[in-house]
């Protein structure tokens, strides 16, 4: 009890006065929760069926998921204002996936995904400022405005890929490099239920298994590939089994703890040199496929509402924490306020930051090359290309 009080008071010393009231209450330092048993394919045992959540981790996961949520909603707003252009694929509803996966690996591990990538870009370490400024196409964006929504990169995060399925062989290749380098790193290679029918994925499965690559194939199954439901696209919708000879697990993708435990399990499998493994995360997106898709011509509003009210990942975590004395409602509300402010500040930056300079149009065509001339719209328009 004393230890808890002193820890809490120590925390209070760093925070403004309003916090002292909250901090004077003591919380549990952790709690244990039951998580859904994963369906297994070619595995004798799966991840544990309980998970321990510390207060610290809980607050961190909550803040991260809330940040992704508000980031996506802000992107929606900016897109409707035409400040974001082109393609914009939002992942609100799927926050437990990016946050849970990150919680199960190390920063030195690797991750690659497709175009619904804003959440991963954040969990892999970029700031909301850099992300929003990239979405608005400004020089402060993580790709200096050259890439946009689908082409954001960070250390050990290989994007952000526009061509459905192409990222999967890439991920297997990153895993090959991991094995080659011998540092027991793994690569999380993500794709959706729509992409799961791409031939190149099966080619990647085969080689990853043959060569025992430390590749965790992850199917983020949100039930719809653009406007096509899983039943209309796949002869088998048991995505966790479609690696055939690759062991698989089907995970509750709306529960951040379930995702975390499954990821730890999968990573351990790969690090032990057992070869690839496949995880299917059952999740849901609230928005349509992209901002051009209202998302209600192929699914009902009732379905969307049902998921929101019963399975929202942020709500699930919040309820668990509040009901088990890991946090208070007020405290979580304060985090909400903090997150909103952070996103608002980032959006202001992203809207005010200037576009990249025209002189840089030709930059970064090649790597490590001496500068050369790039032809513009006609032979008299020239741009300099610098590596």
């Amino acid at each position, binding site marked *: 009890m004393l230890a808890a009080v002193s820890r809490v008071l120590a925390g209070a010393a760093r925070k403004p006065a309003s916090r002292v009231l909250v901090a004077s209450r003591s919380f549990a330092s952790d709690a244990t929760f039951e998580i859904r048993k994963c369906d297994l394919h070619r595995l004798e045992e799966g991840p544990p069926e309980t998970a321990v959540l510390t207060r610290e981790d809980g607050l961190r996961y909550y803040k991260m998921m809330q940040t992704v949520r508000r980031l996506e909603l802000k992107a929606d707003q900016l897109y409707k204002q035409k400040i974001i*252009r*082109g*393609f914009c694929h939002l992942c609100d509803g799927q926050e437990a996936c990016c946050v849970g996966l990150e919680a199960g690996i190390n920063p030195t591990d690797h991750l690659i995904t497709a175009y619904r990538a804003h959440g991963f870009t954040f969990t892999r370490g970029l700031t909301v400022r850099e992300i929003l400024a990239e979405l608005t*196409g*400004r020089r402060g964006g993580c*790709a200096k*405005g*050259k*890439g*946009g*929504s*689908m*082409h954001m990169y960070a250390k050990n995060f290989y994007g952000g*890929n*526009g*061509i*459905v*399925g*192409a990222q999967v062989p890439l991920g297997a290749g990153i895993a090959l490099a991991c094995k080659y380098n011998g540092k027991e790193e793994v690569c999380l290679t993500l794709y959706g239920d*729509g*992409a799961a*029918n*791409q*031939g*190149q994925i099966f080619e990647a499965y085969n080689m990853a298994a043959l060569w025992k690559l430390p590749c965790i194939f992850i199917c983020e199954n949100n039930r719809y*590939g*653009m*406007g*096509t439901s899983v039943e*209309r*696209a*796949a002869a088998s919708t048991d995505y966790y089994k479609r690696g055939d000879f690759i062991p698989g697990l089907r995970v509750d993708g709306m529960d951040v703890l379930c995702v975390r435990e499954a990821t730890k399990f999968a990573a351990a499998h790969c690090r032990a040199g057992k070869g690839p493994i496949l995880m299917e995360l059952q999740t849901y997106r609230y928005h349509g496929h992209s901002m051009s898709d209202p998302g209600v*011509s*192929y699914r009902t509003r009732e379905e969307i509402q049902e998921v929101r009210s019963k399975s929202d990942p942020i709500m699930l975590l919040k309820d668990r924490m509040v009901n088990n004395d890991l946090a208070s409602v007020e405290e979580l509300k304060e985090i909400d306020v903090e997150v909103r402010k952070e996103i608002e500040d980032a959006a202001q930056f992203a809207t005010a930051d200037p*576009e*990249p300079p*025209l002189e*840089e*149009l*030709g930059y970064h*065509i090649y790597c490590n090359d001496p500068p050369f001339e*790039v*032809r*513009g*719209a*006609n*032979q*008299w*328009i020239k*741009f300099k290309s610098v590596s």
Partner: protein
Amino acid sequence: MDEELERDEKVFLLGEEVAQYDGAYKVSRGLWKKYGDKRIIDTPISEMGFAGIAVGAAMAGLRPICEFMTFNFSMQAIDQVINSAAKTYYMSAGLQPVPIVFRGPNGASAGVAAQHSQCFAAWYGHCPGLKVVSPWNSEDAKGLIKSAIRDNNPVVMLENELMYGVAFELPEAAQSKDFLVPIGKAKIERPGTHITVVSHSRPVGHCLEAATVLSKEGIECEVINMRTIRPMDIETIEASVMKTNHLVTVEGGWPQFGVGAEISARIMEGPAFNYLDAPAVRVTGADVPMPYAKILEDNSVPQVKDIIFAIKKALNI
């Protein structure tokens, strides 16, 4: 497509979201409701697979229209387009035709960045055995798709997403169910005397805009809408150059090995070369992967001002 589906029951459409979603860009709106599952088929996201399936169906006598959601995704299936469709009639010495149409939006859109903005006119136009068409306006689109479907050869139709939403006045003749635009014939959209400006797809509109501006300065441009990339109607271009003595080509794709490069080479090989008073000038997309930021994107595609500049340079004004 509706008219051709009605006319010939061997015609069918397959691709991603073409049926129940009414088409990613609503091009096939209403078709599934009218023709059902047998003739309008939603495929999984498996380009290589369904393109191959479409080619196989064509080999067996059906007349498929295979839609690529954009031609960027056709790269995943390009082996089937070239090796299985384009070359087969030749390899079989005339035994095995492949009456297939590959269609979809091509080239730059707005803010869709590098992987979604490539123009494939030069890539597909390079291959013997393929026919490649590139409509600009509604008349082109209607007439060319019908000709493509009725053609017994593999035809690649490069549409343009930004043009889908543009309305054009459709002349009386074009409203007929049997209105066809012949493949392999260019159209002079605007006659002129001082310079020949050749283009295809959306840039044709930019050329006409440039021509209007220049007309006020006393420069009359002859604007040619290629309509077909392969087989190229070089004769129409030659006849025009022999009249105007100057040539500017305009395309959205990259300059190197592009449509303008081919036109320039052919002009040099033919009778029109001796009529040129200045070298041919090419206006193209910038030689970079398409950037996302608006200012960079705007400067990576040919704008009206770039066309005007090129025309004046060619005319030495």
